[in-house]
C-alpha cells in the first residue's frame, strides 16, 4: 500500500497572532490509500481544523498553518506539500484530490438551483463535462448514492428533499470528481439516527466501490467504530492516542480515550438501564395524559382549512411520582409537541391532561434544549432565577435569595454566579442554571426537552448524573424527550417510542430496548451506533417517514394494543404501516 497522506507536526493558529492562539499543537498522522481514519474529539479539540488544513480551507476561516508539513500524493504520482502550496495549485487539489462533505447539508447546497444543476456544475469544474454528458453523469452519480427515482429528482430544489437526501446529494457532488480522499466533517450529526445509519452504510459501500480513502470526523466514538480502520483521538489540539480501531476500542492507552469510552453514554441495548424505582401500581399518577391531539392547520382557504398537520394524534400515557418516562423518536415524530402541549405552549386539539395534587401551583416545569436561547442574555442570574418566584407573587427577599443560593449549590454552581450574566457561563453551566430555575417553584414534574442534546459528550454525562441525583433528592418525575437512545438508556425507567405522531410502543426501559416488538422500534434500535455491534454489517435501508398532512376531518384508526409481559404495550401494525 502507498501512503496517500502524511501529516507531520502540524501547528495551526488563529487571529492576529497565530503562534500565540494555537488550536492545533503538533499533530502527525498517516493515511494509506483506501484506508479510513476516524478523528474523534469534543468541540474545540481541533479535529475539524486539522481536517480543514488538508485542503487548506482553514485559510478562509482565518486560520494559518504556522509549522509542519502535509504531504499529499496526487493523482499523477507527484507529492505535494499542501502546507506550502499556493492558492492556484490548491484549486486543483480541492475537489479533485480531496473532496469534502459538511455537517449541515441544507446550508452547503445553493437553494436557488436544482440539485441536477449543482451536480452538473461539479462535473463541469472537475472533469470539463458539459451539456448532455454532464446530465448523464449527474444521473449516474445520483443512482450511485442510492437516490430512488433519480431522473425526476434532478429537477428538485434542495428544500424539496429531506435531510438525508440532501446529504446524499452532497456526497454525489463530492464523488463527481472521483476524489482520492473524502473528508467527512460530522456528516450525520444533523440527521436522525435511522438516516444516519443509511448514510454510514452508503459511505461504507461507496468506499468499497471506489477505493477512495476517507477521513471521518466525529464526536461520537461509537459511530466511527464500524467504519474506520484507524482512530485518532484529539483533545485540546493534540492527538492523545492513535492506533488501529480495534486497539483503541479494546485497549485504550490514554486516560482521555478511556474517559470517552466509559463516562460517555454508549448504547448497550438495555444492559445499562437504571435499576432503581420500579413502578408501584398502587400509586396515583402525578400526570395523566389521555388521547392528546395537537394539529396545526395549513393553507387556510376561505371557509374551511385545507387540512392539518397531525403533529400529535391520540397520545396517552401516565407518569408516576419519582419516575422517568422517556419519549424517543426522530425529528417530526411529535415528541417535542407533546412536551409543549403539556406545558400549554401548544394549543390542544383534543384530549385531557390531568396533573395530580402536587406541592406547587405550577407542578410541571420545563428545561429546553438550547441553553443559549432559553436564558435572556440581558438579565443577571439572580433576575433569571427570581423570575418564576416573582411570577407567582413572591417578593425578592432574603428567603428567596437563600433558595436561589441553595439550588445553585445543588446544581454545582457557586454563589457568585448570581451577579453574572448568561454569556459568562459555558453550555453545561447554563443548562445547570436552567435546571435550577425549573426547580425554583418546587415542581413535581420536570419536562426535559432534549435537555442534554446540545452539550458535549462528557458534559452530557455529568448533567445526566446531576439529573438522577436531583430526582432522588426531590422525588421528581421526569418526562425526558430525546432522540438519543444512549442517553435515554441511562436515565429512563420507562420508554415510549413515538412514530408519526403516535406512540407505537411503551414499556419498561429494559424490555423496550432489549426486546423491541414494533417494526419501527426495531429499526430505530438497530440504527443506533454501538461499539459492541461494530462488526455487524448494515444494509442501506431506504424507508421514509410518512407525511403527517391529513385532509380535514381525518381521524386516525383507533389504536389496538397488544400486551407483552407486565408493562410492555405495543401498537398493532396495520398492513399499510408494515411495508
Amino acid at each position, binding site marked *: 500500500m502507498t501512503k496517500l497522506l502524511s501529516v507531520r507536526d502540524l501547528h495551526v493558529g488563529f487571529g492576529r497572532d497565530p503562534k500565540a492562539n494555537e488550536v492545533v499543537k503538533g499533530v502527525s498522522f498517516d493515511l494509506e490509500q483506501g484506508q479510513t481514519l476516524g478523528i474523534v474529539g469534543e468541540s474545540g479539540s481541533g479535529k475539524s481544523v486539522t481536517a480543514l488544513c488538508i485542503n487548506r480551507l482553514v485559510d478562509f476561516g482565518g486560520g494559518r498553518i504556522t509549522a509542519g508539513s502535509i504531504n499529499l500524493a496526487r493523482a499523477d504520482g507527484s507529492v505535494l506539500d499542501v502546507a506550502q502550496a499556493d492558492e492556484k495549485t490548491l484549486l486543483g487539489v480541492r475537489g479533485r484530490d480531496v473532496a469534502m462533505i459538511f455537517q449541515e447539508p441544507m446550508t452547503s447546497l445553493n437553494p436557488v438551483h436544482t440539485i441536477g444543476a449543482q451536480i452538473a456544475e461539479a462535473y463541469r469544474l472537475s472533469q470539463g463535462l458539459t451539456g448532455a454528458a454532464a446530465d448523464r453523469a449527474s444521473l449516474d452519480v445520483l443512482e450511485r448514492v442510492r437516490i430512488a427515482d433519480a431522473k425526476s429528482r434532478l429537477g428538485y430544489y434542495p428544500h424539496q428533499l429531506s435531510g438525508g437526501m440532501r446529504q446524499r446529494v452532497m456526497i454525489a457532488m463530492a464523488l463527481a470528481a472521483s476524489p482520492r480522499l473524502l473528508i467527512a466533517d460530522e456528516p450525520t450529526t444533523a440527521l436522525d439516527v435511522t438516516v444516519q445509519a443509511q448514510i454510514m452504510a452508503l459511505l461504507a459501500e461507496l468506499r468499497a466501490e471506489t477505493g477512495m480513502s476517507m477521513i471521518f470526523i466525529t464526536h461520537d466514538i461509537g459511530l466511527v467504530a464500524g467504519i474506520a480502520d484507524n482512530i485518532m483521538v484529539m483533545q485540546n489540539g493534540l492527538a492523545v492516542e492513535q492506533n488501529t480501531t480495534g486497539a483503541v476500542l479494546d485497549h485504550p492507552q490514554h486516560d482521555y480515550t478511556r474517559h470517552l469510552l466509559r463516562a460517555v453514554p454508549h448504547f448497550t441495548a438495555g444492559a445499562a438501564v437504571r435499576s432503581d424505582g420500579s413502578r408501584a401500581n398502587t400509586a396515583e399518577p402525578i400526570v395523566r395524559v389521555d388521547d392528546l391531539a395537537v394539529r396545526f392547520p395549513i393553507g387556510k382557504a376561505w371557509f374551511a382549512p385545507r387540512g392539518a398537520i397531525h403533529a400529535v394524534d391520540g397520545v396517552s400515557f401516565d407518569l408516576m411520582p419519582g419516575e422517568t418516562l422517556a419519549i424517543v423518536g426522530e425529528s417530526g415524530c411529535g415528541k417535542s409537541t407533546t412536551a409543549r402541549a403539556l406545558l400549554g405552549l401548544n394549543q390542544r386539539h383534543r384530549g385531557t391532561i390531568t396533573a395530580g395534587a402536587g406541592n406547587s401551583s*405550577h407542578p410541571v416545569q*420545563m428545561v429546553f434544549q438550547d441553553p443559549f*436561547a432559553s436564558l*435572556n442574555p*440581558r438579565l443577571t442570574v439572580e433576575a433569571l432565577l427570581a*423570575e418564576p418566584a*416573582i*411570577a407567582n407573587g413572591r417578593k425578592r427577599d432574603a428567603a428567596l435569595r437563600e433558595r436561589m443560593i441553595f439550588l445553585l449549590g445543588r446544581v454545582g454552581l457557586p454563589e457568585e454566579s448570581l451577579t453574572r450574566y448568561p*454569556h459568562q457561563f459555558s453550555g453545561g453551566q447554563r443548562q445547570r442554571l436552567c435546571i435550577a430555575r425549573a426547580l425554583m417553584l418546587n415542581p413535581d414534574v420536570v419536562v426535559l426537552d432534549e435537555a442534554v442534546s446540545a452539550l458535549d459528550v462528557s458534559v452530557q454525562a455529568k448533567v445526566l448524573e446531576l439529573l438522577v441525583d436531583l430526582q432522588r433528592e426531590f422525588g421528581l418525575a421526569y418526562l425526558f424527550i430525546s432522540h438519543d437512545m444512549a442517553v435515554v438508556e441511562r436515565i429512563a425507567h420507562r420508554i415510549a417510542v413515538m412514530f408519526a405522531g403516535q406512540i407505537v410502543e411503551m414499556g419498561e426501559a429494559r424490555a423496550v430496548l432489549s426486546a423491541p416488538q414494533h417494526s419501527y422500534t426495531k429499526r430505530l434500535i438497530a440504527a443506533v451506533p454501538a461499539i459492541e455491534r461494530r462488526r455487524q454489517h448494515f444494509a442501506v435501508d431506504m424507508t421514509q417517514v410518512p407525511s403527517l398532512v391529513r385532509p380535514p376531518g381525518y381521524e386516525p384508526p383507533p389504536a389496538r394494543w397488544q400486551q407483552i409481559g407486565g408493562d410492555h404495550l405495543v401498537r398493532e401494525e396495520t398492513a399499510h404501516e408494515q411495508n
Partner: protein
Amino acid sequence: MAKMLAALFRHPSGRIGLVIIGLYLLAAILATLGLTPHDPLKLFAIDRLKPPSATYWFGTDLLGRDAFSRLMLGIRQSMFIAFASVAIATIAGTIIGLLAAWWGGLWDGLFMRIMDVLLAFPAILLALLIIAVVGPGAMTSIAAIAIVYTPIFARVVRGPALSLKQREFVDAARTFGSSQTYVLTHHLLLNLVAPLAVQVTLALAWALLTEAGLSFLGLGTQPPTPSLGLMLAESRNLMQHAPWLMIFPALTIMLGILGFNLTGDALRDILDPRTQGRQP
C-alpha cells in the same frame, strides 16, 4: 448607561459627537438660565446689522438684536422641540410596535397599517394639517414631528420583538406563569434597548432638521421667540448685506445634526451584536 457613555467616549467619532451635543446642551441650559451675553429680545436700535465684533460676537440682526444670544435661545428652542418630539415618538412607537408584535394577528395588521398611513405623510404636510386645526406654534412642531417618527419607532421595535417573541426564554417565562407585563418589559424591551438607542440618536438629528424646516416656513416657533429655522428665514433677504445672519444659524444646524449622527453611528458600532460579547 455610564458604561455606554464611557464606551462612546472611547470611540473616535462618538467622542466628537458627544462633545458637540454637550456644547449644545450647555448653550441651551445657559439660555434657559438667562445667562446670554445680551438680552436676546432686546432691540439695540443704533446697532442694527452690525457685523461680528467683540460686543456682538455673531453680529446683530435688522432690528438690532444680538445674534449670538438669539442663537443660544434658538438652540434651546430647537433642542427642546427635538427631544420632546422624539421622546413622545419613542414611547408611543415602542408601545405600538411591542403590542402589535405581541398580540399579533388582527391587532398587528391594524396597528401597522395605521403606521403605514402615517408614514405616507411628509412631516411638513402633516404639520400643515395640524396647524389648520390648532394653529402654528412650538407645540404644533412637537406634535407633527412626534407623529411622523412614531411609525418609524413602531417598525424598529416590531421586527426584533417578533423574533424575540419566538425565543425559548419567552416560552420558558410562560411555563412558570410570568405576567404579560413582566415578559414585555424584561424579555422583550430589555433586549430592544440597543436598537432603540441607535434609532433615538439618529431620530434626534432628523428632528432637529425638521424643526428648522418647519419654523423656516413659519409653521413652527413663532417670532419673537428665536429658533434656528426662524433665524435662517429672517436672514433670507439680507444674505448679501449681512451674511453672518445666515452663516451662523446654518452652521449651528449643520453641526448639531453632525453631532447626533456621529453619536448614532458610534452607538451602532458599540452595540453591534458581533462585538457585544465583550461587554455585558
